[in-house]
């Protein structure tokens, strides 16, 4: 077990290293210049800026310096576009907000999607199944940027305890979390249904039925754990993506989360910010995938040997 964990963590580090390297060089192929948009910037000022951020040095030295700062000093560098802010501060400030929103909406998605998928599988090809699957499809097709404004209009306007947008009251997390959860819930419902159908057709379930085990016990004690394997596989990467913030939902509800930096960083050619985000996201993705793999090993004994 420990060997699996260590080798997976090592793999993650290799992947993150390669991704940062790829991003480091690819981002410099973008047309324009990080400081080209700053108004009233003379050539001298621009040169001074580039010197300040070390952009005047040869590329391979910049690259080596980046890793030196990250690894030896734990310094992700200063953001180019947000003057005087460190990349690590930007992430440290915004990540908890996105994390809170993301965790709540994941929780909602799981408590919505998994039961829906189970119901659909139990009533396979009956009206309950079709209804559940049409609801799930609606969750995929009615996207956040349509749902968000509709929720704002139909709930936040009439209810005084809900803000239309902003992040000042505890209740401000509710609408964005609900908006965000439907898409994930829909995928979870489809995957749970698929896994459940697969397991319910297995011989050992038939044996349990023949022995007279009650329907409830069959589902909860025998079928549910292995049936959730596809859903858990999906949850790993989805988890990492959701807790790092959704730009669309955060911009609809004006939430100062992390999602905005993914767009602002690359749009402003903020090299250090983008690299910091790629690094952070890659590590989170690795950890989330590892957690989902460990959960799978716990859920499916067959996986323990391989």
């Amino acid at each position, binding site marked *: 077990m420990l060997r699996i964990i260590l080798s997976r963590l090592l793999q993650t580090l290799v*992947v993150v290293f390669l*991704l940062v390297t790829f991003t480091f060089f690819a981002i410099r192929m973008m047309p*324009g210049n990080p400081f080209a948009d700053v108004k009233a910037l003379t050539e001298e000022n621009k040169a001074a800026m580039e010197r300040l951020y070390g952009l005047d040095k040869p590329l391979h030295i910049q690259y080596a310096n980046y890793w030196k700062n990250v690894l030896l000093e734990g310094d992700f560098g200063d953001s180019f576009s947000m003057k005087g802010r460190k990349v690590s501060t930007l992430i440290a400030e915004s990540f908890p907000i996105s994390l809170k929103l993301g965790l709540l909406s994941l929780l909602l998605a799981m408590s919505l999607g998994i039961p829906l998928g189970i119901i659909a599988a139990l009533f396979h090809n009956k009206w309950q199944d*079709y209804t559940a699957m049409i609801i799930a499809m609606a969750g995929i097709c009615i*996207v956040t940027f349509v749902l968000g404004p509709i929720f704002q209009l139909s709930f936040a306007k009439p209810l005084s305890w809900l803000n239309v947008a902003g992040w000042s009251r505890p209740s401000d997390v509710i609408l964005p979390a609900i908006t965000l959860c439907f898409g994930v819930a829909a995928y979870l419902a489809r995957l749970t249904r698929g*896994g459940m159908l697969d397991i319910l057709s297995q011989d050992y379930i038939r044996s349990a039925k023949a022995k007279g085990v009650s329907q409830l016990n069959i589902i909860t004690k025998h079928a549910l754990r292995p049936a959730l394997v596809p859903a858990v596989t999906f949850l790993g990467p989805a988890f990492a993506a959701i807790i790092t913030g959704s730009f669309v939902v955060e911009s609809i509800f004006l939430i100062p989360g992390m999602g905005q930096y993914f767009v602002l*960083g690359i749009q402003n050619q903020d090299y250090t910010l*983008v690299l910091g985000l790629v690094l952070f996201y890659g590590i989170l993705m690795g950890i989330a995938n590892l957690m989902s793999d460990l959960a799978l090993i716990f859920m499916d004994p067959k996986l323990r040997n391989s």
Partner: protein
Amino acid sequence: MSTSIKARPTGLKDVEKGSSLWADAYVRLKKNKLAMLGGVIVISILVTCFVIAPILSWMGFDGNEQDLANKFAGPSTKNLLGTDQLGRDLLMRVLQGGQISLLVAIMATMLTVTIGVIYGGIAGYVGGRIGNAMMRIVDGLLAMPFLIIVILFREVISGQVDEIARFLIDDWGWNDNDVLRFANLIPLTFAIAGFGWLSMGRIVRSSAASLAQQEFVEAARSLGLSHRRILFRHILPNMLGPIIIYATLTIPSFILYEATLSYIGLGIEPPNSSWGKLIQEGANYLETNITVLAVPAVLFSLTLFAFNFLGDGLRDALDPKASKD
């Protein structure tokens, strides 16, 4: 030896004629009412956007003509669905936006299929260390934040496309308006495909890898056929099922990507418009007039529904065993 040859059933006519995979699949697809409905809607939307809309615009309906005295007008004979915040005809705006959304999604899907099939096919057929390394690259890129990689691709490509467009206009004397409008779509298309082919590559690889183990491929190899011939004449035709299914399901997800990027303001640029852009504009006027949001949003969601139901139906029909999720 000789007896066994003689013992073969004579006269193939006696053997009951089997139905092909495709005929079988069509029978199954026809039974699936939701999928058939999805197919009908997909075809109607394609016809409306690419056949009826040009006819309407030839008849004098224009989606870009502003009429500021006539903002948020209700439906009339001149504006069948009313007008938007600048007095433009909403119906034509939505149909022209749909042309762009669908065009980008379909072009990106074709690119995705091409890249994914070649890359995944080679990785699966070659297998071993090289195949594994090829797939690790894919896995790695999938661990990139979606927005960063798409915007990165888009910016890098748009520099190149601008140069080509300028060359076409200056040196070849092409109509600059048409070239620029189309050139505007290319970077976005490539950016979406640049991220989208990763999943396609994975799916193709896994089916190519399992096909490469099968006896008919071994037979082809022992006959001395070239790798390219085996890959394109023997393995590829057998992968068509999963490829078609995945391509059908890729179109709606690309429509969604495009809409998301356009909604953010990083997708389609004026004078082009797309459903995502229209929804974003409409959301600003939600309280004044809900139709400017509702019309594009409904059409957009309906299109996603239709493509997804059709794709699910095709999967159930072509690959009954895989119809799990």
